[in-house]
């Protein structure tokens, strides 16, 4: 596969709200040179929902590795963290 330079991904965090969730995720992203373009959050049905649009250089850290590591962080702090390429959302919601 070719190097995907500056590919946008969506990171979602879902779980019970607690102190330091954003901090933990942001620390990870910063230490891996992953740039946050947008961040928003909402509480639905008592659950904390956060979405981040991030941009990273595929060369620095491949997508599957990032997704895997974020998932592990999620397990440590008791929330579900998922990273997905943004295309799936763009395809579904934009014509």
């Amino acid at each position: 596969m070719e190097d995907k330079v500056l590919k946008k991904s969506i990171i979602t965090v879902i779980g019970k709200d607690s102190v330091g969730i954003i901090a933990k995720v942001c620390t990870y992203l910063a230490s891996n040179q992953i740039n946050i373009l947008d961040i928003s959050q909402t509480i639905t049905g008592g659950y904390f929902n956060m979405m981040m649009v991030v941009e990273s250089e595929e060369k620095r850290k491949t997508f599957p590795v990032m997704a895997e590591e974020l998932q592990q962080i999620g397990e440590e702090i008791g929330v579900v963290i998922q990273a997905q390429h943004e295309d799936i959302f763009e395809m579904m919601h934009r014509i």
Partner: protein
Amino acid sequence: MLNINEVIETNRMIHEMNLDVRTITMGISLLDCAGTDLDQVCDRIYNKIVSKAENLVSTGREIEREYGIPVVNKRISVTPIALVGGSCCRKPEDFVRIAKVLDKAAVKVGVNFIGGYSALVSKGMTPADECLIRSIPEALASTGRVCSSVNVGSTKNGINMDAIKLIGQMILETAERTKDQDGLGNAKFVVFTNAPDDNPFMAGAFHGVTEADCVINVGVSGPGVVKRAIQQVRGENFEVLCETIKKTAFKVTRVGQLVAREASKRLDVPFGIIDLSLAPTPAVGDSVGEILEEIGLEFAGAPGTTAALALLNDQVKKGGVMASSYVGGLSGAFIPVSEDQRMIDAVEAGALTLEKLEAMTCVCSVGLDMIAIPGHTKASTISGIIADEMALGMVNQKTTAVRIIPVIGKDVGEIVEFGGLLGHAPIMPVNSFDCSAFINRGGRIPAPIHSFRN
């Protein structure tokens, strides 16, 4: 920029409503593997499949991981084997050898099914076609992943009744050969009229002769998503209902389009079509029966079912067609009995009969699908059921199919368990009046008048 609600909506569809891509099917032409020496043909077939589909499964997994969308099945369809083996297979056992090679190749590349152990006989059978049809019981009993199909009719050609008569006997023989597994062999066999060349769904997938050398076809799914969407408009009129289904189908299909495009790019194989079918699974919340209930029926099979299914099918197509650049395959709601928990429940409640299912297949894809019947059913009766279904397809210019499973040693009211995506099924009663004099006439039914459009 995307907003959080859109992201949440997509992920809910995946995690709570069973949205998935049902199959990435790689169609591979085996026409260039034909020859007069069986050993050589077998080698060529194996090598071609293994080299073309080498990365199919891993690519499917990659896409799954990166987009967070399950890609449930990775499969292969090949050129109808009756054509490929025509000049080297002299007896049914020769064809069985090819079936075993297909099975071996499927295991090697890690796909769960390989389709195309097929013959196209809508007007007549060549000796090779007949040989292949006669080899089906042995082929299905001695392989695990090979799927077989025969096209016995078309709007353009009429119906080959000789083939239907023979197939009735072969279905019973397959049931007998696989009776230890409740007749599982027949879950891997479909008889068609107007079979599409680019269907990605099993058991009826084959790679038509009009297709390119290698192509990627994708089948989307998502009955759960449609059901949840129309739950939100309970009690509203048909306009609102139809708009809701259409919009949902659009979203579901877009995901299929994305996956198909990515798979095609990564495998360096051209994209063929997206098949817009609502394909249920035995999982709760992944059922076409549930959608029919949500539309307003107590059970699938109640009066109004055919109309409800007609509108569902039509709206799925209307929404889906705009979402993809190429649509093909079967494209319609599937109503397999054993693979859909609410259909099973409807049969058990006495709401859904074989005759009602037949009526429903007039307005949706694809036919009498995954229906278990008593093992003592006569071959001519099975042929009669097939002929009826084929006539519906021929006259209505649509694809129809029969995947019917006689279960040796079991009778109406008993349950058969196929396991996995194939589910379980209550054995349904069959009209026991005789049609053997009709089936024994021999020959073919001429093409209908509206096929003469030139």
